[in-house]
């Protein structure tokens, strides 16, 4: 009996010492910590940038944490900023452009105004605008989300189409082409995730519109571009050209395993497509179709993110100097990450480099990067505002009804009402 109790006590004491043993090692001075969400893309890109800087500044080391997803990073960042505890926050965090304003306005003082130290005119201006608040810019732009229409040239060929047939077309024309392709090959034109409004937003931005007016009020019921986008989106379904999918795995799975003919998407998808080496030469990239309306162009943006420096950083000086030296100044670095990671950066001068001029055999020997650069310069700049997530959610609620042929004006009104309610 005595033995049993002492065993109990031992277990407990071992357990308790166990807890106290595992205490923290705080980030050491001279170490720049970074939060990113994808190892192969933004993680390795940042590691490479860090290595470049360390070569000249041996006393500065980098700690790039890529073990959390983007949603997780938001949850961590937000909890800590709200708790007012900066302990454990990184020096640099990657944030997607369309939610940057939300952070800047919700947490004043949490981020360092980088335009005080770095000349922002060297970057693509629509990227800088996304992180500008009260006349100051808070980010060093990273990757561009310029869009392209990735397509399977073999499928299109079977239906009698060539690359030229996809140049400067409207979505209506793409629907005609898709119908032909489906008749000949049996493949749906594209796959879409009903829970993702990405393509609708892409269409809308190609006409230079977004969900908001300049003063931040809702621009929904009188938004011709949004209406046209929803109409086009519904047409794709009504013409039976869509393979509906759910979630990222199915979404990427459909086009990487040859189930659909085209993918209208941001340039950052390139690595995912090129991961299937056996499909080399079977792919092409065209400009995305435009909406059939005044002011619409064959270029848009989807996603893309930027580096933000937290004001709580212990190594602010080194951190900013690092961003300035590598990310705002090293043209060769941008050639490198383009070749190795497929990352299209936002430094304007980098576009004149060799890598950007090279052609790619995977895409049938086309100068794809040059093309993306051209389209990038045409992307209409829009103000993402602070409530994009709220309106997205309101749009999603109406999408199934719109696909079934529901009244568009009523749907827009419903989107407006719901979003208005959420924007408090």
């Amino acid at each position, binding site marked *: *009996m005595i033995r*049993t*109790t002492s065993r109990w006590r031992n*277990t*407990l004491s071992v*357990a308790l010492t*166990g*807890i*106290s043993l*595992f*205490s*923290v*090692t705080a*980030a050491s001075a001279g170490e720049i910590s970074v939060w990113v*969400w*994808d*190892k*192969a*893309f933004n993680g390795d890109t940042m590691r490479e940038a860090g290595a470049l800087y360390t070569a000249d500044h041996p006393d500065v080391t980098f700690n790039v*944490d*890529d*073990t*959390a*997803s*983007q*949603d*997780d990073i938001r*949850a*961590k960042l937000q*909890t*800590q900023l*709200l*708790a*007012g*505890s900066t*302990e*454990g926050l990184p020096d640099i965090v990657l944030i997607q452009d369309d939610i940057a304003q939300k952070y800047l306005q919700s947490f004043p003082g949490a981020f360092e105004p980088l335009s005080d130290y770095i000349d922002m005119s060297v970057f693509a201006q629509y990227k800088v605008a996304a992180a500008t608040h009260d006349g100051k810019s808070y980010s060093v732009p990273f990757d561009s989300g310029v869009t392209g229409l990735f397509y399977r040239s073999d499928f299109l060929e079977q239906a009698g189409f060539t690359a030229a047939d996809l140049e400067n077309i409207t979505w209506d024309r793409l629907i005609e082409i898709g119908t032909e392709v489906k008749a000949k090959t049996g493949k749906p034109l594209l796959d879409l995730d009903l829970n993702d409004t990405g393509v609708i937003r892409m269409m809308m931005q190609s006409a230079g519109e977004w969900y908001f007016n300049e003063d931040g009020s809702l621009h929904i019921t009188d938004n011709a571009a949004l209406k046209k986008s929803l109409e086009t989106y519904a047409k794709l379904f009504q013409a039976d050209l869509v393979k509906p999918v759910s979630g*990222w*795995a199915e979404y*990427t*799975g459909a086009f*990487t*395993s040859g189930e659909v003919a085209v993918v209208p998407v941001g340039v*950052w*998808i390139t*690595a*995912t497509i090129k*991961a*299937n080496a056996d499909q080399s030469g079977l792919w092409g990239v065209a400009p995305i179709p435009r909406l059939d309306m005044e002011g619409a162009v064959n270029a848009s943006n989807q996603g893309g993110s930027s580096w933000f420096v937290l004001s709580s950083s212990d190594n602010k000086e080194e951190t900013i100097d690092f961003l300035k030296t590598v990310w705002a100044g090293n043209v060769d670095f941008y050639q490198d990450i383009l070749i190795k990671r497929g990352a299209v950066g936002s430094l304007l001068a980098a576009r004149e480099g060799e890598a950007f001029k090279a052609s790619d055999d995977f895409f049938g020997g086309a100068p794809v990067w040059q093309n993306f650069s051209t389209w990038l310069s045409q992307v209409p700049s829009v103000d993402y505002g602070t409530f994009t997530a709220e309106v997205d959610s309101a749009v999603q609620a109406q999408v199934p009804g719109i696909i079934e042929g529901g009244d568009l004006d009523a749907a827009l009104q419903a989107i407006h009402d719901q979003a208005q309610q959420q924007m408090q």
Partner: protein
Amino acid sequence: MTVSSMTTTVDRAVAQSRVPANPWGLVRRALVYVLLSLAAFVSIFPFYWMVVGATNTSADIIKGKSSLGSALITNATAFFTQVDAVRIFWNSGVIAVVATVLTLAISSLAGYGFEMFRSRVRERIFGFLLLLLSIPFAAMMVPLFVMFSQAKLVNTFAAVILPTVASIFIIFYFRQTTKAFPTELRDAARIDGLKEWQIFLYVYLPVMRSTYAAATIIVFMANWNNYLWPLVVLQTAENKTITLILSGLTAAYTPDYGLILFGTVLATLPTLVIFFLLQRRFVEGMLGAVK
């Protein structure tokens, strides 16, 4: 429920239905097997898919291949190269084991206390605790973080473990199962001169071992899979748990599903081992343990 009331229920049931032995017994037995087999098949399938997926390449998995592949070694190598597996599993293990031991100790004591020593005040407290059980964790995360940050415990295992060990859920569970604990045993022990803590340790604990077995599985699993709080409070990569690491891998632009499924199979094993070890406890009757 006392013994006398149970016997009257039986008497009543017997009186109501004095039927001869069911001639359909065999058919019914067959039906039970068919239904259980069906349930087993449906239950096993996703698990089977997960195990098979661990042997396939990412491309094959996306194509929906559901037969054994030859990429197991590749996936394993990729997993162990990308993830500091020993460290991460050690983290998960320490957190889950310490949390389980502490939770069982503290929460079973409380469950026993609430049921065996009832008083009006404690009943009120218990009712209040049940209400607290329903507060979504997201609502308490920020203030909890403030507390641990002030205590300089952010990024420690203690911060992950401490808020979970007094589990209202497990207190409630122990309280409910204690209702089946025969009070005669306690009375007998008291007459034998055992102290209250001795009764708990030497009478109650062995008798309730099937309850402890079930609670061990449940608590271990909950801690092993705990997500939101460890996510926020464990900040450096080397302190993270396997559940956090797997979630991050899934969110990549080009996820390697072979690697991920290999990781999920590994991450599932500890729970299964514990279940295998403890499931025998569900077969042994409580009273057998006393004899």
